[in-house]
């Protein structure tokens, strides 16, 4: 039995007298013990989806089950079994680190001691500050405390809503390392993020935009959806290069990616020499043209465009 089963969930809300569809016919499963990523920009519907699955709000239609329990009828059973870390820091700012942890252990009828082994590696990093009030912690320490509190009752499923937003590249790497270890403990993890590069660390990823899933697949499967030939191009005049590439016959899209432009073509008939020759004729120098494999961001933009049309 999958840990999470979602069947055609929709949710809308009113904003300024206009009906906004936050989620539209979302369906997916998450296998037990797997790490499932929901990836998309702010406002795509990630938090709404997580709040429905954590039984905090009701969907307008559709059904969902978490650990075999219905999110509407059996919400009490679900709440005992899940850990939830919301995007916004939601612990008690005026309780100390240790008091927060004790509080969450107590309301779940357990003790810090009983499940210490699960949180040990994370909690040890903030234990030297256990007498500090949570409100006085730095962002990174708050995040570790919130994760410890979400885990203290050894949940079978962990929901993490944008745990790495605003977090630097080093801390993000460390955080994902912690998630992989929790997965080894048999915990199913659903995590949302706006950072596309984090997709590679999930077992399966859903790309979400405007309340709809653009794709659900393994990271490898997701990138293999990109069928057009893709080239990384650079030259001595990057500003002009963008204009020129957009005029290139056979061009499907041109997007900057770090120091290169990613040029997708509508045809596989055009070769490296054709692109090179065209750019030379446009007075570019130090030209580099390399075939590349698409990444998650390439796919995301391609899917975004096709749903806009």
């Amino acid at each position: 039995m999958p840990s999470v089963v979602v069947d055609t969930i929709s949710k809308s809300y009113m904003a300024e007298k206009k009906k906004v569809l936050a989620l539209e016919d979302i369906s997916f499963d998450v296998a037990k013990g797997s790490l499932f990523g929901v990836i998309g920009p702010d406002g795509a519907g990630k938090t709404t989806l997580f709040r429905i699955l954590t039984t905090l709000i009701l969907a307008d239609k559709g059904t969902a089950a978490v650990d075999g329990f219905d999110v509407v009828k059996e919400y009490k059973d679900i709440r005992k079994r899940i850990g939830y870390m919301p995007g916004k820091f939601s612990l008690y700012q005026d309780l100390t680190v240790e008091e927060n942890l004790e509080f969450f252990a107590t309301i779940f009828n357990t003790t810090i001691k009983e499940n210490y082994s699960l949180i040990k590696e994370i909690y040890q990093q903030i234990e030297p500050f256990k007498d500090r009030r949570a409100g006085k912690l730095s962002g990174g320490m708050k995040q570790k405390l919130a994760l410890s509190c979400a885990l203290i009752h050894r949940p079978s499923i962990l929901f993490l809503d944008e745990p790495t937003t605003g977090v630097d590249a080093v801390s993000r790497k460390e955080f994902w390392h912690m998630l992989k270890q929790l997965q080894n403990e048999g915990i199913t993890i659903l995590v949302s993020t706006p950072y596309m590069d984090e997709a590679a660390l999930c077992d399966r990823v859903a790309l979400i935009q405007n309340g709809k899933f653009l794709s659900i697949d393994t990271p490898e499967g997701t990138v293999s959806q990109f069928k057009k030939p893709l080239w990384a191009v650079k030259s001595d005049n990057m500003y002009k290069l963008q204009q020129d590439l957009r005029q290139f016959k056979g061009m499907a899209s041109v997007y900057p990616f770090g120091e290169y432009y990613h040029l997708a073509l509508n045809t596989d008939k055009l070769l490296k020499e054709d692109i090179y020759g065209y750019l030379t004729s446009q007075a570019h120098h130090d030209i580099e043209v390399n075939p590349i494999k698409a990444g998650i961001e390439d796919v995301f933009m391609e899917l975004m465009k096709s749903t806009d049309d």
Partner: protein
Amino acid sequence: MIELNAHMITADKLTKRFGDFTAVDQISFDVSKGEIFGFLGANGAGKTTAMRMLCGLSLPTSGIASVNGFDVNTETEKIKRSIGYMSQKFSLYEDLTVKENMRFYGGIYGMTIPQIKTKTQYILEHLHLEKEKDTLVGSLPLGWKQKLSFSVAIFHDPSVVFLDEPTGGVDPITRREFWEMIYEAAHKGTTIFVTTHYMDEAEYCNRVCIMVDGRIEAMDTPTKLKRQYESAHMEDVFLKLARKAKRNAD
């Protein structure tokens, strides 16, 4: 002769201490007119403190710095008037309309009513927002909000604009459109001082400075930094440097 490489921002041993904690430790750098200067560092490295001093919001403990020729120690009001500022978290009033926000910010920066009108019209056309001019900013999609925020940050044609993680949480297409706007502003001579957690965006900067534990650990063009640290991407450069951090901040 006109100084072609006029420095719009200079910092010389700029330092900020809070008690016995040195948040910013003797940082020195110059940023030229029209340059896109990327300011990177792990959380807690001192970026925000440094930026607050340059914006005239916090006085240095020691050292000197100037922005647009004004001293951060003595001319903070002049600095505030001559810069633009945008952050991911707060920039526009959500319960004012698109037009009202521009009217408000134009007024704050001492622009005349005709100036505000002309500029408002220009931005509405430029961003294709004419139809949304009376919409509350709070109900605009995030991508539009960020682009509008940037336009408002440079509404009064400041010579320097500070962007604090301007693209956090934005979709990949909008993120790139946003950078096109940055390029356009820089091309017109606006100096851009930008922080980001997206390492591909570090590549779009003319020069990048990486802060570690309050100090500038590296500063150069992305190409030279990658060569120096034998890395294929700025992300690897950043990881190599930021992992040296000893501070257990955030």
